[in-house]
């Protein structure tokens, strides 16, 4: 509690006013410097860095050799082929089991495949850049990402109906991934495949969902 009898009395001389103004200004400036000095680096540090927003470089993952051999020999229906994938999540490195849908085809079916999926045989135009081109020319197989291009659910192969069917919203696709029915805007997404000295490998690509164009979001 302040004592009302004791009051600061200072002369209202120009010097005194100037002195007080100066000290008030210094206080404000010093406070601003300290405040900004803390705020700027803190806020800048919260902006996601290029490292975490990096789409990554394409990586080649070897497919499960036994499954791929079986696929090449006997598969008449599309088949899940598994592989082991390493994903960087911030400061964590996770190893997860992933799979692709392998479709094996006869030369006749290959012609059908080309007719059904012109999108997989054209060089993409515009801003879409494929760092690893998908080349299905004359290899007799196709590898599809198991992620539905509609909203990212995982679809299944319905053997009876001979079509891929997404359980979430009912999009259906032919054996060659051509979009048949349901809300999806494009056919199944291809994954780059290569076979170097007998080791079958795949690159995992995350594509943008919903949109009609095939846009690469990241490689993981």
């Amino acid at each position, binding site marked *: 509690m302040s004592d009302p009898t004791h009051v600061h009395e200072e002369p209202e001389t120009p010097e005194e006013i100037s002195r007080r103004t100066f000290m008030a200004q210094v206080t404000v400036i010093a406070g601003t410097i300290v405040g900004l000095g803390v705020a700027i680096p803190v806020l800048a540090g919260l902006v996601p860095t290029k490292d975490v927003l990096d789409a990554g470089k394409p990586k080649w993952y070897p497919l499960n050799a036994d499954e791929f051999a079986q696929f090449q020999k006997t598969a008449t229906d599309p088949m899940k082929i598994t592989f082991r994938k390493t994903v960087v999540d911030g400061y964590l490195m*996770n190893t997860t089991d992933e799979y692709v849908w392998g479709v094996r085809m006869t030369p006749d079916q290959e012609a059908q495949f080309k007719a059904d999926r012109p999108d997989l045989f054209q060089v993409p135009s515009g801003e879409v850049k494929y760092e690893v081109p998908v080349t299905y020319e004359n290899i007799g197989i196709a590898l599809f990402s198991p992620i539905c291009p509609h909203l990212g659910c995982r679809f*299944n192969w319905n053997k*009876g109906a001979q079509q891929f069917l997404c*359980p979430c919203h009912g999009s259906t696709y032919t054996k060659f991934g051509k979009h048949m029915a349901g809300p999806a805007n494009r056919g199944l997404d291809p994954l780059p495949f290569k076979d170097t000295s007998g080791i079958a490998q795949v690159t995992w690509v995350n594509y943008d969902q919903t949109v009609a164009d095939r846009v690469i979001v990241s490689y993981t």
Partner: protein
Amino acid sequence: MLNWIEERTGGISALKNFLTEDVPGGASYWYVFGSATLIALVIQIITGIFLTFYYAPSADTAWESTKFIYDHVAGGPFLLSMHFWGASAMIALMTMHLLQVMIWGAYKRPREIMWVIGVILFLLTLVLGLTGYLLPWDLNAYAASQVSIKIAGDIPIVGPAQANFLQDGLQMGTLTINRFFGIHVWLIPITLLALVGLHLAVFRHNGAAGPPADETPRKFGRFYPDQIFMDTVASLVTFAVIVALAMWLPAPLLAKADPTNSAFVPSPAWYFFPLFGLLNLLPGNMFSIGSFPVSGELIGTAVVPAVFVGILLLLPWIDRNRKRALNQRPYFVGFTFLSVIAVLGLGWYGAASVQAHIAASPGGQTPVRGYGAPPPGAEQAAAGGTTTTSNPVALGQAVFSQNCASCHSANGGGVPNLAPPLDNNPFVTGDPAKVIAVVDNGLHGQTVMGKSFSAQMPPWKGQLTPSQIAQVISFIRGSWSNHASVVTEAQVKAVK
């Protein structure tokens, strides 16, 4: 002793001053919601600090440490559930407090600043609810937070930056958990506490507003003991309700977040049901302004909430009527009443939409801990039991999930427009011979229960053995809410 303290701190006279505060018009149970909210906040802070002693925010540990709290911490499930229900209590009490202040006209001059701080406190509490929802990192946490981040990211202009700030990466992951943890545990609580202090300081400055009348009340009550007693009763009731909910309905924990399970249908916290209902009610594409398309999503997630919050924040300046008596401001009271009805209606509609979505989803909704989870030990029993069972229903479940669940969904709910539900379907529980015929030979273009479905049911004869067909039909006839008889292999073979 008291004098000694008073001389050195001034605390005793400050306390007396605080306790002898006038309550215009006398103490009332209408005034308890603010202090009850404060009690809920204190419970949240204490239980929240407790949880940080065990919880570890990272994609590898968030769910695991939460489950650890359920399994290996003395009183862990109870305190965690108190934190879960305390959040609901806080939001419910705050809403009551807000409505009471609105109807009493207590936001009017000179209490505008106090009102604005109160509205900001309400919004910060909603952000606490939203960020806390992610931390257990279970299926619901993951899917619901993905929706929240998408909504934040779809707002024009500031959206992408907001989403980047929240997500910190191209996908939700361990860095997102760290962000939400920092926001939930440090940023918002500290801001909230500072603003609560300011809210109370301004309240002491202005004093209580008193009843909604325009003449000065003749009667004055005292804060202590009259109002304090009522506040205590309300606090005790609040505490008892939170404890009862925590004991009888422990917070559910679902299976760990799984980015590959995009079929999971997230359920928002109940206090976001009105927003969810609004979103479900609006059509996808509404109209365009120039070349800019305005979607129902944008209206529901950005425009309507922004207008709502804007009206709340500016209420003291929008409603410039100085009168506080209810009969002097019929439009305001009527409008408030209609708004409450609208919010409740949307909430009810939102809850119904969530239920409908969950009923049509392929599963993952059964918690592993908390309310609705199987009793401890059931997991092992189920895992050990299925391998040796000869029960046709249990065997049929495996056949079903491999072959049928992708269309008819794991809970038998089917997929709208695509494949009919099997649960509660009189055909399925009717004549076994007819069911066998459909499974054997397939079906297409039939109207089932008054609706048409586009997918083709393939003929399973030849793909499944008669015994597998018998098992799966036994399963669908005896699962979910179906209670029809099992079907034998002989019956399957008898149907041509």
